[in-house]
């Protein structure tokens, strides 16, 4: 057990690629947690996808031992946070377990929208925020400008901000010293009844549910009988320990300490993240403030290409959910795509990651439908229904109204791009709100916009209009009534439910036209002509035709080389596996999503 005064609990907040994982590696190395010999890049990012994409998805934690300038040994608990907006709920969890946050900013790129959003989360949570400018070794580094931006946001003198290079190690020791000096030690009461916050958990095939916990008051000992205050369930603390970063069992964890807990529970849902642990015999009276469960924002249908894989998909989703409570799904059936699941995601990156993990780790071949949002539909009798899939939208005649979710978006950009950004926002039915300057060259733009308008392509368009310089963050701001219609797409005369979309009335014509054009170029020529139509209700608004293919034969049989011909055709056949039969039409899987990637810049 460590004296509270010697404990510092902190997170690192950074935009993707601003060097958070590299800094974490350097801290591990400097404090001797990982020897240089065992150092592999980005120790804390354990998932393959995290390493590949250079992002952190799940929170991680590690305990570092550091000798301060006063000669005393300090325990520094680093609680890693994801950098992407989709995972901001994970950030709040991590922050709730800390007293301080390191705000890491790239010396060339400057402050980004997501960093700012997360910094505000930290400030709101009452954390001590220590800014640091990273990558000062870069040729393009401009620490003075970036320091000015940070000063405008956090206040304080720009000269005071520590400048480091996580890559070369410059400034890292100074940063460690600031952590010791500026992050307050944990404030809990060691004599009070046990209260510990479960700030994350994951499922381990051998050990069952492993919880990451932060002890606030009292003491947690190995073998202690504990109770979860929200669920009321009691368990034995069969193992507690710290992460160094490898798991190391300890006899007890005192107030202010961070570690893990294993109870033998196998079902992840039985221990809720955000719940408070207390002693079963001498319980605390009030739980710690928890956090609200993350709410899915974006919905998409996932269907196995091969209908026989439905059960495998269900099992895979169940397994993914073990470690990702934010993933929700319910069975859905589509005339075009058969049986699958309508899944809810925190955002687009989350959606992409789940789909990629399903395909990669569970070897599933999936068709994903275009992402949509949840609409609130008011029936003539006044009852309100939530619609997560366009195909569920009743005919407009039987509706009193439809409301769609809105988000507040914050865009950070160099000032020169304000014009194009405003145009983009307006084209997407957004309303421009406040504009404030972070410095002479950077501006923050706040807007309100329908979520549906940004779930597809908006981010790419923002990037292309600002040459990659703008960044974006968003948060939900409730529902608003809108004039929405359902556009159906018919292939070969048959409506394809998976292609239906809910769009604003003023955009329906344009949408129908671009959808049919797009599909014409995506659907390969078949054995017969395939008409593609867009319709609202029964009214056709657009039509294209994929002409029948006429030649699909290779002239020669290669002088008796039957094997080679077979192999060639077999390969073509494999390619066709990425096709889904919709009625008698072969539709490439990409069509279900790519059809909506309509770029208004073209």
């Amino acid at each position, binding site marked *: 057990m460590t004296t509270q005064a010697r404990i510092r609990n902190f997170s690192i907040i950074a935009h993707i690629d601003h060097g958070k994982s590299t800094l974490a590696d350097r801290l591990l190395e400097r404090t001797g947690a990982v020897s240089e010999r065992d150092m592999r890049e980005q120790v804390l990012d354990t998932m393959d996808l995290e390493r590949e994409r250079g992002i952190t998805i799940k929170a991680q934690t590690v305990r570092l031992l550091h000798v301060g300038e006063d000669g005393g040994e300090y325990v520094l608990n680093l609680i890693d946070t994801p950098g992407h907006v989709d995972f901001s709920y994970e950030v709040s969890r991590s922050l709730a377990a800390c007293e301080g946050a390191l705000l890491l900013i790239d010396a060339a790129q400057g402050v980004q929208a997501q960093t700012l959003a997360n910094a505000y989360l930290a400030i709101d949570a009452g954390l001590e925020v220590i800014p640091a400018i990273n990558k000062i070794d870069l040729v393009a580094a401009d620490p003075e400008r970036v320091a000015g931006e940070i000063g405008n946001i956090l206040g304080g003198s720009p000269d005071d901000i520590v400048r480091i290079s996580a890559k070369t190690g410059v400034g890292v020791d100074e940063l460690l010293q600031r952590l010791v000096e500026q992050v307050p030690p944990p404030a809990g009461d060691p004599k009070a009844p046990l209260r510990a916050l479960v700030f994350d958990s994951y499922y381990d095939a051998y050990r069952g549910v492993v919880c990451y916990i932060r002890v606030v008051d009292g003491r947690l000992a190995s073998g202690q009988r504990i109770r979860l205050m929200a669920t009321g369930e009691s368990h034995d603390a069969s193992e507690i320990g710290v992460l160094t970063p490898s798991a190391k069992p300890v006899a007890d964890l005192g107030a202010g300490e961070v570690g893990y807990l294993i109870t033998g529970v196998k079902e992840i849902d039985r221990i809720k993240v955000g719940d408070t642990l207390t002693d079963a015999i001498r319980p605390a009276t009030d739980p710690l403030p928890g956090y609200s469960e993350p709410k899915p924002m974006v919905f998409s249908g996932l269907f196995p290409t091969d209908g026989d894989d439905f059960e495998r998909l269900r099992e895979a989703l169940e397994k993914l959910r073990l470690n990702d409570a934010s993933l929700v799904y319910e069975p859905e059936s589509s005339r075009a795509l058969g049986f699958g699941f309508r899944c809810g995601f925190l955002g687009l990156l989350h959606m992409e990651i789940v789909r990629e993990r399903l395909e990669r780790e569970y070897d599933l071949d999936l068709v994903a439908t275009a992402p949509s949002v949840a609409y609130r539909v008011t029936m003539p009798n006044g009852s309100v229904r939530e619609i997560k899939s366009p195909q569920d939208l009743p005919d407009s005649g039987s509706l009193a109204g439809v409301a769609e979710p809105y988000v507040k978006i914050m865009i950070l950009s160099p000032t020169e791009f304000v014009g194009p950004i405003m145009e983009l926002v307006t084209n997407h039915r957004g309303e421009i709100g406040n504009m404030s300057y972070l410095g002479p060259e950077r501006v923050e733009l706040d807007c309100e916009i329908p979520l549906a308008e940004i779930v597809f392509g908006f981010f790419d368009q923002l990037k292309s209009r600002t040459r990659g310089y703008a960044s974006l963050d968003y948060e939900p701001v409730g529902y608003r009534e809108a004039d929405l219609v359902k556009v159906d797409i018919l292939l070969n005369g048959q409506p394809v439910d998976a292609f239906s979309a809910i769009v604003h009335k003023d955009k329906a014509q344009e949408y129908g036209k671009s959808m049919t054009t797009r599909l014409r170029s995506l659907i390969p020529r078949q*054995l*017969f002509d395939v008409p593609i139509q867009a319709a609202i209700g029964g009214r056709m608004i657009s039509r294209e035709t994929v002409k*029948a*293919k*006429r*030649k*699909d*034969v*290779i*002239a*020669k*049989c*290669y*002088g*008796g*080389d*039957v*094997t080679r*011909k*077979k192999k060639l*055709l*077999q390969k*073509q*056949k494999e390619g*066709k596996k990425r096709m889904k*039969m919709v009625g*008698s039409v072969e539709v490439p899987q990409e069509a279900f999503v790519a059809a909506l990637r309509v770029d208004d810049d073209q």
Partner: protein
Amino acid sequence: MSSVDTHVDARSAYVHIPFCSSVCPYCDFAVVAGADHMIDRYADALASEIRMSPTWGPLDSVYFGGGTPSHLAPSVLGRILSTLESHHGLRAGAEISLEANPEDFSEDRAVELSRYGFNRVSFGAQSFDGAVLEALGRRHGPEQIMTSVAAARSAGMRSVSVDLIFGTPLETDQSWDQSLQKVIEASPDHVSCYALTVEPGTPLNRAVIAGASAPDPDVQADRYEMAEASLEVAGYHRYEVSNWCRPGHECRYNLTVWAQGQYEAYGNGAHRFRDGVRSRNLRRLDAYLSEVEAGRRPIAGAEPVTGWDTEIDRLFVGLRRSAGVSDGPGVQSLIGSPEGRLLREAGVIEMSGDRLVVRRPLLTDAVHRAVLGLEAPPGWVERPTADNVW
């Protein structure tokens, strides 16, 4: 059994001659130019390889393909043929084919080849349009096609064939029509029309990648239909996707391949089907030579065709023929499959009496892909063969 299916019992041999004066830009066969100094060594290797192969009964047909077989002296070709004859035997009246380039073909040579036993010549004419011939890298002109066909005729060749390539980007409907009229005027017994195909790794492919125009499949479909119309009127019937002939002039070697009959093969990159195994020779000339010269058969790989695969294979090779294939478990499996139903609805395949035929030959590969995916019907058992009957 339809007459085309009787070729299942035939025995054929293919002899590969890789040598050419120059390599055409579209060609991806195992060929070599500027290696004439290796011809004698290669001919010796062929003889050794023939003698290393298990002996067979007399051959019903022999096909010298390439490359450019006519690039070799008739005496060299004659020697290879006589080695084949002494090793396996030749059935009386066996078809002995030779691929030839028009520029290699004088009347004297034709007479000499005929004396050695060659009785069928297939000319790589490709086009009667000078510009197209040049684009295809051919070394002959349109008039040489006429004289070489005449030379083959007067030397007493039993069957004369002309190959054409259509759909070269330079070609127009008009020039293709003219090629067709000229070929009819030359009056061969057999005509093959192949769509220009851009094969990976060829200079043509590199040109297309660099921006040269590629053959347009719709244009090629038009040209194919033109060929079909003109040739039928002139008395040629189509017996395979790309092959037309006058009655009785079907290429027997090809019929053997398509009837799932057996064929031996010699030379670099050559393919055989013998005793239920499809196998192939080393493709590189030097590798082939050193293997044979070391006293080993130059086999690069082999796949046995057994059980249900034999049935799939029968459809795969047989459906290229206009006569299609006789009914059987594979045919039933195809027409019962979702893909088969689509192909039928689109008029691509059809049952004609007790045979399954491809009615839209330009979509044959779509049929083939469906065939490759077929699974044995429940309860299907392999027909007993001589080996497993008690």
